[in-house]
């Protein structure tokens, strides 16, 4: 086993750790750093539950080596949640019933945060395309799309 030092930033905090070369980012977050908000669904790229932001871009942490975070900034769901209350995207998800079992929610929230940062007023089609790598087995997506559309005052039902 080969290990080496990794220097990265997670949710604004510098992290220095010695990690084995084969360490996956998802495992670093959940097991080493105990940030269990990032979920392990399929572990193979087919669900989006493990989505984090890597230098601001939604990234599948289950298919990313921890090494790839060297010198970069990782943001997890813990990092977008304010000390008190909720992020506007989280609040909108609650208000629109866009979360049921909640397992997919961290991934959807991070994907949506990045979408709304780059495109503050997406239309329904743009939202659907942006979240098309995140699976939800509970909500049927309609409420998720409505929640994202509503964040910046979009009309949830109007197209």
């Amino acid at each position: 086993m080969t290990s080496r030092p990794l220097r990265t930033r997670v949710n604004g905090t510098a992290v220095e750790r010695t990690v084995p070369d084969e360490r996956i980012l998802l495992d670093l977050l959940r097991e080493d750093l105990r940030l269990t908000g990032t979920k392990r669904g399929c572990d193979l790229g087919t669900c989006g539950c493990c989505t984090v932001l890597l230098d601001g871009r939604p990234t599948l942490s289950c298919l990313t080596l921890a090494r790839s975070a060297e010198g970069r900034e990782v943001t997890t769901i813990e990092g977008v949640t304010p000390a008190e209350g909720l992020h506007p995207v989280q609040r909108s998800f609650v208000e629109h019933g866009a979360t049921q079992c909640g397992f997919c929610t961290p991934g959807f929230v991070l994907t949506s945060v990045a979408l709304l940062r780059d495109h503050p007023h997406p239309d329904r089609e743009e939202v659907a395309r942006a979240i098309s790598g995140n699976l939800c087995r509970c909500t049927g997506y309609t409420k998720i799309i409505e929640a994202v559309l509503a964040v910046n005052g979009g009309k949830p039902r109007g197209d």
Partner: protein
Amino acid sequence: MHLDPFELHEPTTVEEALELAGSLSGKFDYLAGGTDLLPNYKMHINLRPHLISLERVSELRGVSADRIGAMTRLAELEEHREFGAAYPGVAEAVREVATPLVRASGTVGGNLLLETRCFFFNQTYPWRQSLGFCLKADGDRCHVVPQKERCYATFSGDLAPALAAVEAEVEVAGPSGRRRMPVEHLYNAAGDGILRLSLVPGEIVVAVHFPAHARRARAAYSKLRVRPSFDFPELGVAAAVWGAEESPEKVRLAIGGLETYPRRFDADTDPLAGAALTDAKVRTVAEAVTRRVRPVHNTFLPPDYRRRMTEVFVRRTLTRARSPSGSRAA
């Protein structure tokens, strides 16, 4: 799923990567975005003790008017407006790959060199063990065509047919220097799901190059998949047409998702040059191509359906590519 230990190497130049490859002969895989390799490693498929990451090799990056570096992320290509305008058929294929999240990491080089796929291969170790391992990993027989001693795993990349249709080329670097070849020559046209490439061990895909005429093509790509996101192509048809609709100079057709390699059908499309590409001709070519393809039962949809859809998709894609309004010519 934890990965078995491996040693990761992070060269910064092509030459350094090739040197490492030489010293680790046969005991390594190159790692690009990892979206194909890492799922296979997690399922304990053909593990190697060393990975040579290409992430830091700056020569493999960058998109310009006539070149895409192999390490270009698919998402980067998708957002590149000039690229999309210059090569609309390729841009269509890029948008159809996997999901936005996979495209954020997946690269152009990795897409071209994607491992071939099979229902009996892309499975966990215990799954494969319980049925009995197959030729492509750990075993000595094929579950798809048991009478034969060869592998029929399907080439399932979306970009290769789209690039082959516009006659793009790849630049590869290897122990004995650099060479360029048409994209379709990357693959073993003898049809082998295991020895799937024509590359010599250690060769690196450096970039895709577009000859000047690639820009003048009207091109289109159509993909058959079960869900409009996530799924690999069950069939991917790319068409390119040069010249006026009434008398095209050249027509190219390339198909992926059906056999062990993406295939061009020049013998069927060469006779189309010089005379109007009528509906009747499009139908005749579609029928001829369909008679030649040989999908096997190793993906989600049955091979007979994929064959019948080949005819439909060739017709639709050629029809789209032939008309100036379908996909723009420069």
